[in-house]
């Protein structure tokens, strides 16, 4: 076309091209931040409430369940779905597996069309603080009768409702019971005549013995450095009781400087300074680090949650006999006994208020909490649900599962937990601080100041909704 022979026009075109060239990066950067439009409210229709249909699920309706597909798979959810289909004749349950919960469900929340029930779990879960206003109160679920005719509340372990309760509203049903402990190889300890340390001083002694045997006492991986934060907080709570837990949970000023917390930090620092911590953790992928404990036995104790057995299944030495013990106390005169346990529940199930079939979502949870579904879960995943009496004495052949139940029995009512780290999404920032501390790069004072700074930043940010812990 003639445009070819118009030098002036061509010049303008080139100028335009320059502008475009500059604009392209702008586009690339900004499109990473796309939102959606508005959305209307749908309450969700209800059918007739009856003894067999306590939430009034609409006859022959469909339940849309989105389940996080991680270590536990989704077969257990499909199993519960089948139970719903049986109990509510004519209904269907669509179980969808998902790995990135936040990214995939975010547009559905914005559009006002969330699923009926969600297993909000995994690395990319939706921060509960972000959506708790949009969730159903699940008290009615635990007050209902399960499929075996017992009131659900009475069949659960103690302390499983509290972690899902925010400002008095029970919005998240954490399904899988998680016991936090110090894990070790019972066979290794027996062969060396070692006993489980009950205080930080005993830990230090064991460190010397392990060193004599050519092993380290502890080790860590870069993504899991905060397991040591979990462990030291547990230790501090046992030492100082609820006071410590409330100060941390309510983001109080100087909450990291209290004597029990400092005692636990100092205990750990002594171990690091003595060289009983396997070096290089800050650059090691965490499962690789855990294999140094479970497979090659380069270090002997590891603080973690009960999922550790399942996680390391393929990388555990033959005859390892993975066993858990409570975290050490700071002194022998601690407020809570050594047996006290940090136990909470994970795999948070939520039912959005705007879901089309919220009643169906609750019915799904009722099925999950039935004895049959809970036993099925324990059998297939070697993990306990929050439903009591589902683990036989042999723990389906798992020493870790047996020791979890034993620890829970020993703890009795001395069970505690906290959720401020996850609630305010602090873990990413804390990891940095802990990696530095564990590799000997900072002292207790620096660790305390850095952790306090993270806490103060959240506490001082008016844009973040706070939850008061009682």
């Amino acid at each position: 076309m003639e445009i070819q022979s118009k030098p002036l026009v061509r010049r303008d075109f080139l100028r335009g091209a320059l502008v475009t060239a500059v604009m392209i990066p702008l586009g690339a950067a900004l499109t990473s931040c796309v939102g959606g439009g508005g959305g209307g409210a749908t309450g969700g229709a209800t059918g007739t409430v009856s003894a067999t249909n306590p939430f009034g699920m609409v006859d022959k309706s469909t339940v849309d369940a989105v389940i996080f597909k991680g270590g536990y798979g989704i077969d257990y959810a499909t199993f519960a779905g089948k139970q719903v289909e049986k109990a509510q004749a004519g209904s269907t349950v669509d179980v969808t597996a998902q790995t990135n919960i936040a990214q995939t469900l975010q547009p559905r929340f914005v559009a006002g069309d969330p699923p009926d029930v969600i297993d909000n779990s995994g690395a990319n879960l939706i921060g509960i603080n972000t959506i708790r206003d949009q969730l159903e109160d699940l008290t009615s679920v635990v007050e209902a009768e399960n499929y075996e005719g017992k009131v659900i509340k009475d069949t659960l372990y103690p302390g499983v409702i509290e972690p899902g309760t925010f400002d008095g509203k029970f919005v998240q049903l954490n399904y899988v019971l998680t016991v936090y402990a110090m894990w070790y190889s019972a066979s290794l300890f027996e062969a060396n005549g070692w006993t489980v340390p009950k205080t930080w001083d005993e830990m230090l002694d064991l460190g010397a013995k392990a060193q004599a045997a050519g092993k380290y006492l502890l080790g860590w991986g870069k993504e899991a450095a905060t397991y040591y934060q979990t462990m030291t907080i547990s230790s501090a709570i046992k030492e100082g009781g609820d006071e410590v837990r409330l100060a941390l949970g309510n983001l109080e000023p100087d909450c990291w400087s209290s004597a029990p917390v400092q005692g636990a930090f100092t205990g750990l620092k002594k171990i690091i300074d003595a060289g009983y911590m396997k070096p290089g953790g800050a650059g090691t992928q965490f499962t690789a680090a855990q294999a140094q404990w479970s497979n090659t036995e380069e270090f002997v104790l590891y603080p973690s949650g009960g999922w550790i057995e399942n996680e390391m299944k393929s990388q555990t030495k033959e005859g390892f006999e993975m066993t858990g013990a409570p975290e050490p106390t700071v002194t022998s005169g601690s407020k809570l006994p050594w047996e006290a346990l940090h136990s909470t529940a994970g795999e948070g199930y939520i039912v959005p208020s705007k879901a089309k079939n919220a009643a169906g979502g609750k019915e799904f949870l009722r099925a999950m909490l039935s004895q049959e579904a809970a036993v099925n879960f324990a059998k297939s995943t070697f993990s306990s649900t929050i439903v009591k009496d589902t683990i036989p004495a042999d723990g389906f052949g798992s020493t870790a599962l047996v020791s979890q139940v034993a620890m829970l029995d020993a703890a009795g009512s001395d069970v505690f937990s906290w959720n401020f780290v996850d609630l305010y999404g602090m873990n990413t920032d804390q990891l940095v601080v802990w990696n530095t501390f564990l590799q000997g790069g900072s002292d207790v004072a620096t660790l305390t100041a850095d952790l306090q700074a993270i806490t103060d930043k959240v506490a001082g940010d008016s844009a973040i909704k706070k939850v008061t812990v009682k």
Partner: protein
Amino acid sequence: MTVVNAQVAPGGGRTTATRRWTRKDLTFDKISFMVVCLVVPLVVYIVFVVSPFVQAAYYSLTDWSGFTSGMNFIGVSNYVKLFQDATFLKSVGNSVTLALVLPIVTLGVALIFATLVTIGGPSSGAIRGLRNASFYRVISFFPYVIPAIVIGLIWAQVYDPNIGILNGLLTGIGLDQFEAFAWLGNVETAMPAVMFVIVWSLIGFYMVLFIAAIKGIPAEIYEAARIDGAGRLRTALTITIPLIRDNIQTAYIYMGILALDAFVYMAALESGGGPANSTLVMSQQLFTTAFTKGQFGYACAMGVILALVTLLFAGVVFLVSRLTGGSNEVAE
């Protein structure tokens, strides 16, 4: 298309350059051409590129959590917060460092290699590269064929303190201080280690780009230079670089944009931001803020800053090129 038989326009040639279009010119051919080649792309561009810009810029002025349909307008307070956020400022610093270092190193090395395999050969006979040049070309392109995430995961294993091949080699030759040395876990080494991986993975691509550009330069020019007594370095500096200047400029901008993003490499190598946040980049901080902390409004403000920094980078590159005597604004 019928446009090929361009018999529609009467006249033509330079005489029409200043004539305005009249109604008579708007034939079906012209209009259909404009619709297909101008209107449709423009609409696509507006819907998928411009509107998200505007949307994100708007969200950055709100307290949107990302999971609600409603949000409150809070003005520029997100931006005020950003400039007091030490972690974010640290990530800006890291991103800028990457944008300054990566293009220079990557393009510098790529240019040296490209010169060697095209004109760095024997100084007698035809202008050619080193022996086995085509073999090196293929080898050097290998890393670019592997997806970035895989490269990141492979190198994470290489850098592993205890089972990594790097420490294995270093301790193997007697350097015992590298026993269990955490390359990605020390403030001093984390950033250089990550930079090395990015450079390693992209040299091949830019090398191929420069080879193509150098091949486009007539051999007579090099022969003339050689007759005049120019050595290899002299030829590279005064013949090659000025003649492929436009390619270098374009490559510089691409590389800079990649360095300002760097998300994939960081996610694989330093997902947590590295020791003392020494490798935390803006895109990572944006992602965490949006999806882990549920602060989309704040994250959008970060996105706007990232966009502005990128824009500034491209602008500076153009300006520097212009001031140092670039032939034109863009390649002709």
